[in-house]
């Protein structure tokens, strides 16, 4: 019996070393050697300066940029979070109404516009980096006005949005989407 207890302690020690130290160290070694960009957070830079991570959404408030989805933590990362409002939450109902009115007003859209549902609801992570292609297209007019784009530039912008559409992975997994940070970064480069 005593021997069994002692074995237990030793086994725990052995596995703490193996699965708690050696295993993450090996994975870190492989990751840093083979996929250094991904393992350090897929950072996006302008010149030398990191302006965020390709995978983490950011808040965009300016009329000059495409806006991300609503985030119940305002894109805070420590920690990020969701609203956890339920399907009969009155707070959620009001938030949806407000977001819809806001989106239509800010983008000067017709009142009967169907606003894509992801722009009315907050994401699970609070850091969703994507919006749907439809949501991006509805914002083009506002950005054209805010940036005083010529017709030629505005057509360039449309092409930019189109080439930022990511198709479902391998043609079938996930949804069509646009990475907002990458789109906005390229938007700044438009001449």
């Amino acid at each position, binding site marked *: 019996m005593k021997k069994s207890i002692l074995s*237990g302690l030793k086994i725990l020690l052995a596995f*703490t070393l193996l*699965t708690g130290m050696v295993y993450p160290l090996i994975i870190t070694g492989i990751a840093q050697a083979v996929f250094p960009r991904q393992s350090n957070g897929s950072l996006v830079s302008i010149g030398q300066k990191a302006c965020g991570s390709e995978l983490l959404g950011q808040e965009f408030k300016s009329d000059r940029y495409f806006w991300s989805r609503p985030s119940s933590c305002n894109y805070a990362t420590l920690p990020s979070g969701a609203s956890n409002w339920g399907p009969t939450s009155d707070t959620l109902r009001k938030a949806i109404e407000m977001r819809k009115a806001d989106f239509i007003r800010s983008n000067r859209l017709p009142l009967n516009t169907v606003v894509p549902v992801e722009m009315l609801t907050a994401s699970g992570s609070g850091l969703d980096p994507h919006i749907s292609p439809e949501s991006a297209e509805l914002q083009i007019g506002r950005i054209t006005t805010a940036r005083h784009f010529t017709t030629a530039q505005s057509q360039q912008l449309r092409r930019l949005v189109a080439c930022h559409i990511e198709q479902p992975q391998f043609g079938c997994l996930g949804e069509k989407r646009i990475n907002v940070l990458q789109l906005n970064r390229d938007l700044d480069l438009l001449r």
Partner: protein
Amino acid sequence: MNTFIQLALFFGALILLTPVLGKYIKKVIGGEKHLLTPVFGWLERLIYRFCGVDPQQEMNWKQYLFALLWFNFFGFVVVFALQMTQAWLPLNPAKVPNTSWHLALNTAISFVTNTNWQSYSGETTMSYLTQMAALGVQNFLSAATGLAVLIALMKGLIKNTKQQLGNFWVDLTRSVIYILLPVSILFAVVLVNQGVVQTFSSYTDTTTLEGVKQVIPLGPAASQIAIKQLGTNGGGFFGVNSAHPFENPTPFSNFLEMLAILLIPAALTYTYGLFIGSKKQGWTLFGAMLIVLCIGLGVSLYAEYAANPALHITGSMEGKETRFGIVNSIIWSTSTTVASNGSVNAMHDSLSPLAGLVAMFNMMLGEVVFGGVGSGLYGMIAFVILTVFIAGLMVGRTPEYLGKKIESFEVRMALIAVLAPAVCILAFTAIAVSTHAGLAGLNNKGPHGLSEILYAFTSACGNNGSAFAGLTTNTPFYNVLLSICMLVGRFGVIIPMMAIAGSMAGKKVTPVSSGTFHTDNGMFLILLIGVIIIVGGLTFFPALSLGPILEHLLMQAGMTF
């Protein structure tokens, strides 16, 4: 259309991988020579030598259980102690403080029992050291513990009047180094390739395009996420779990993580079939599990694509990620609740009432539909024993399973295993809804509030770990009560199942005759599903009526709270 392709791919991959992995696991736990014996054989022998384990020494059920309980207790002490001292220990670049005693208690029990309920957000609460050496280790060991119990039970079912069930240390060691660790290594590397972070550096500061500071949280995440999915653990490295882009960056990582939830529990049904010498028995159990899973999945998908008249939207994306969309969020929510995984890629609190109901109901069935690694199948065997017993009563014969008589002792033990968690769920929910401390943490009003509390206790008792996360549970009240639930849900099943293993091991096998009740055909499959759903359904129907069912009806009437 895309929805159906993704569903087909998911289930196709699951069905294809089940026999492949199942056969391999059989070789590993049977001690046969296999693919990885030449690679890791030295490690296995080294561990035995270092720990003073004689792999030939057999244990009876009491010795086996005794070793298991002590081992889990030591694991608990380490996880508890590391959290309480992490501020003074190395590998804490984000300088997180020590946790409170009740959070440490809850988290330690949570990870040792394979629940991985989280009252905290990892990025602001746990140091890298705690994540790796405490939580990460238990991700492996709690899964291996579940496997060990299953192995002992299987041996008990097939042995002919021998009391010995094998050696706990051997079953544990083999499970980790030949099954959990190698698959995790492969999986973790693929996850990093997709964008999951894996580093020991501290968090990085960046400046957004609009000039705001954004801290990029980092850490050794991929290694932990691989085992959290494979070991049906589910404890996220980050607070929002697999909704976080650093835990689950792409639809492909999502596909693999979903598959990993069900992979080992599904494969074990095949292993079981091989072990007891009848693949058909294994496929029958697999079939029963798959059918229950698919019914729930269908209901959830229907509910999620339908309009919500209370919020005036259709196909709600509240709590969901754009890259996954509805279908991947719902395959996940169904898989993670049938298996006792508990990781999430969408917030269950914001699911439509019926999808939330399915998630809860899946857990209420006792986590036997695929269930946890090992624990799902040994829980399922408790239901099999009950089904055989009930069928025996119907025809007036002494029930038997695999040629061994099922007597009152086994039925009593199986009933304890099935009812202990159920009693706990209802009693504790009743306490929480009638006390101030219980109601203080609510995030939603109306029937959804009851659902939040009911979900928490269901998740803890089922050792699942997913949550209606709006409920604030990092309080002494919830941390302690949920800890008790997790202990009952784990050891309230393990102890009676080990007793069954011991008593079955001592029984003689009688040969099959014309009067034998077959447990490998469609008739048995339907009976088994019936028993599972009736026990789950009847026990919890009143509570579910007041929560999600009522909410669904009120939502249809356009009401909000």
